[in-house]
């Protein structure tokens, strides 16, 4: 258009100045249509177009280059050329009939190719001649190629404004190239133009705005100055019903910003509306279902009929909230309801205990708290993990069903043992060990259930079990006489030791309910060589050393229970051998029988026996014993004495008064006949006679 205006302006100027008129003749160019008329020549009188080479092809003379010439010069050139073939050229006229543009349109147009246009045609006309734009054409980045030059122009802007100046002026042999939008992708497919438009118009990747997430048509949009986030969302078809409108994310120049659309809509405050920078990313996240949050919201989860978030009123009680949630289901473990506080603390609440046992105070529920009703643990439940350690106790050892049991504080140790099927026959219920955990430390407690069952007592003396405790019921040794393989399982302070002349000496499990005879019997009783009169019990586990001497023989004689000692765990019972080493027998406990008896030696003696018993035990006097002068030496403090016992005389008279006193510690000496008075006298006489004979002999001499 400008060209045309300029042209008319030039014509006007030329009309004013005749000298200059010839100078403004149009210069011929490719596409111009010349009319060469030569009357009388049929081959002429038609239009000749300047072809791509700048030539017109005339009859007889062929191609003649005229492009770039003014019409006058071209007429002259044509005349000269035709003059070679035609004689009369006076009436030859060459006129510029019309001007045309030969332009090639390529790229995303429906019929790409060379189009012939009016001389003043525009880009739009060229595209129209090429069948119009194909779908997917990128409007703002058209290219114009002229010779080796190439320039871009924004056809979209022209369409928006209608400003012709935005389009380049076409010249013959120009090439218009319509590029494809980057959105068309690398694979050629036919698609709906509407879809294409919905996917955005952003061509410049660096500056275009990406909008995705919960919007109806996620797309890449060309950046527009002053376009707000709301504009972009609107262009993307608005948010879906799942959109979290208060959590829209915008990344501006690499910096994330959260855009709360809800807040903006509520307040209308423009300061809530972030600016959109070129290349920004806008993401509308999906709202997680049922997340509700508010100043008075409480949450009820787990095994209730209607779990969810509840807008509570100030002061709503725990039961009201639970009832609003439909109450616990039949799968609910109502003993272990947990209240998770907004500050992270967790409180436990036992609803069964509250309703059936204790009553008391309901837990306070404040805004932001969550009530969790866990699932009930079935007895056949394979997973034991559902019971937390603080609500479980471990029962181990000799019970019928050892295991991990759920615990509630109103239960007692007896409930627990019953739940575990009770102790087995081998369970040592006198030594139940309970390990109590408190503040990362474990403290052992021992309970004598056997004694409690027999004697009863204050229930306060029964250890109070708490969640996390460990209850161990040890097992009694299987065979007391052969418990060496298991001896480590039996604590030292639960044992008693039996040694010496018993059937099965060893280490026996013992408790305070057992008796001396129990343990002696457990050890299979004394053997035949046991010295029952001298059984010793060493009492350990007490200050100082203490040994009780037990005359078990006297017990068997009298049946007096008081003779039997009280034994405790840790004590040692020793049953000595009758045939013990003589060194082990104290001198004050025996009577020495020496001299002419069958078996001289040391003999034990009792005060209900006499010297006759002693002599009989020592094998009686030998044939050469001097039975009339058996000597008894009594040892007594300050009154040591020797007395003679005439066995022969006693035997004749039977007078028990003649029996001498014999006590332990004394000595009985049976001389032989060599030491009789007669023999000694006769020996003396013999010696005297010998001496007298000697003297007589000496006297005679």
């Amino acid at each position, binding site marked *: 258009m400008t060209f045309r205006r300029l042209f008319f302006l030039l014509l006007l100027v030329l009309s004013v100045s005749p000298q200059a008129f010839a100078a403004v003749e149009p210069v011929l160019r490719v596409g111009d249509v010349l009319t060469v008329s030569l009357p009388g020549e049929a081959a002429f009188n038609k239009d000749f177009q300047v072809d791509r080479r700048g030539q017109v092809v005339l009859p007889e003379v062929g191609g003649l280059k005229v492009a770039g010439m003014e019409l006058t010069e071209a007429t002259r050139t044509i005349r000269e050329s035709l003059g070679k073939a035609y004689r009369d050229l006076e009436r030859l006229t060459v006129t510029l009939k019309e001007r045309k543009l030969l332009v090639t349109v390529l790229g995303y147009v429906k019929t790409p190719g060379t189009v012939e246009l009016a001389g003043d045609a525009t880009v739009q006309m060229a595209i129209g001649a090429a069948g119009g734009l194909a779908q997917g054409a990128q409007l703002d980045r058209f290219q114009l190629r002229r010779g080796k030059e190439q320039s871009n122009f924004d056809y979209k802007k022209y369409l928006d404004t209608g400003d012709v100046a935005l389009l380049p002026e076409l010249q013959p042999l120009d090439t218009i190239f319509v590029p494809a939008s980057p959105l068309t992708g690398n694979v050629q497919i036919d698609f709906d133009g509407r879809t294409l438009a919905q996917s955005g118009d952003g061509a410049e990747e660096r500056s275009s705005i990406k909008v995705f997430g919960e919007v109806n048509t996620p797309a890449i949009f060309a950046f527009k100055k002053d376009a707000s986030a709301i504009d972009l969302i609107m262009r993307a078809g608005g948010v879906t019903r799942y959109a979290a409108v208060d959590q829209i994310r915008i990344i501006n120049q690499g910096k994330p910003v959260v855009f709360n659309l809800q807040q903006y809509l509520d307040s209308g405050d423009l300061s809530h509306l972030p600016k959109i920078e070129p290349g920004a990313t806008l993401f509308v996240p999906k709202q997680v279902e049922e997340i509700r949050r508010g100043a008075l919201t409480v949450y009820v989860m787990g095994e209730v009929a209607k779990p969810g978030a509840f807008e509570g009123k100030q002061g709503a009680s725990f039961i009201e909230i639970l009832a609003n949630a439909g109450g616990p289901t039949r799968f609910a473990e109502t003993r272990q309801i947990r209240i998770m506080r907004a500050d992270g603390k967790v409180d436990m609440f036992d609803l069964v205990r509250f309703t059936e046992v204790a009553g008391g105070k309901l837990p306070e529920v404040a805004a932001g708290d969550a009530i969790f009703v866990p699932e009930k643990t079935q007895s056949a439940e394979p997973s034991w993990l559902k019971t937390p350690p603080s609500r479980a106790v471990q029962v181990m050892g000799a019970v019928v069903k050892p295991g991990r049991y759920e615990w509630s504080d109103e239960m007692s140790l007896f409930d627990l043992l019953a739940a575990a099927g009770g102790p087995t026959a081998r369970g040592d219920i006198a030594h139940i060990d309970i390990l109590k955990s408190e503040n990362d430390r474990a403290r052992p407690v021992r309970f004598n259930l056997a004694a409690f069952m027999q004697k009863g007592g204050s229930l306060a003396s029964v250890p109070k079990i708490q969640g996390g405790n460990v209850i161990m019921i040890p097992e009694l040794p299987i065979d007391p006489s052969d418990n060496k393989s298991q001896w480590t399982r039996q604590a030292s302070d639960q044992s008693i030791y039996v040694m010496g002349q018993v059937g099965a000496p060893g280490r026996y499990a013992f408790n305070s309910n057992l008796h001396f005879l129990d343990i002696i019997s457990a050890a299979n009783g004394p053997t035949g060589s046991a010295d029952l009169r001298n059984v010793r019990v060493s009492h350990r586990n007490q200050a100082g050393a203490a040994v009780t001497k037990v005359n078990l023989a006297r017990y068997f004689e009298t049946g*007096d229970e008081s003779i039997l000692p009280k034994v405790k765990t840790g004590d040692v019972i020793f049953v000595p051998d009758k045939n013990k080493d003589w060194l082990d027998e104290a001198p004050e406990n025996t009577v020495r029988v020496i001299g002419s008896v069958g078996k001289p030696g040391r003999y034990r003696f009792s005060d209900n026996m006499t010297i006759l018993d002693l002599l009989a035990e020592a094998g009686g006097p030998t044939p050469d014993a001097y039975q009339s002068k058996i000597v008894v030496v*009594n040892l007594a403090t300050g009154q040591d004495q020797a007395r003679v*016992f005439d066995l022969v005389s006693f035997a004749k008279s039977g007078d028990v008064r003649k*029996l001498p*006193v014999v*006590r332990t510690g004394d000595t009985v000496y049976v001389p032989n006949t060599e030491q009789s008075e007669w023999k000694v*006298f006769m020996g003396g006489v013999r010696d005297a006679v010998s001496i007298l004979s000697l003297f007589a002999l000496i*006297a005679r001499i």
Partner: protein
Amino acid sequence: MNQPPTLRLAALALALSVAACSWPSEGAGGLAERDLPATPAIEEAAATLEKLEARGADRFAAGDLAEARLILARASREQAGGLSVAAEQDLVRLRASFERIERRLGAAPPTPLGQ
């Protein structure tokens, strides 16, 4: 009187040899608890023992009673056998034994012996 000195010497040697083999006196009291007459202290101890037995000591303190009997027998023998000091010591033991029996019978202690 004019005996030769050898004869006198022979008589002396004979007397010496006879004197050298003298024996201690006869012993007694070996079964004194049976029938020998006892001292009052022992008699009283025996009586106390009988009383205790009558009160059931043979059932409720049989072990201690048996021991007391032995001590009593021993004391009787010692007294009769001339070991009076030892007999006194054993009587002290006997009293302690009586007290034990008495405690077990749940009664007041017996009257002190020998008084």
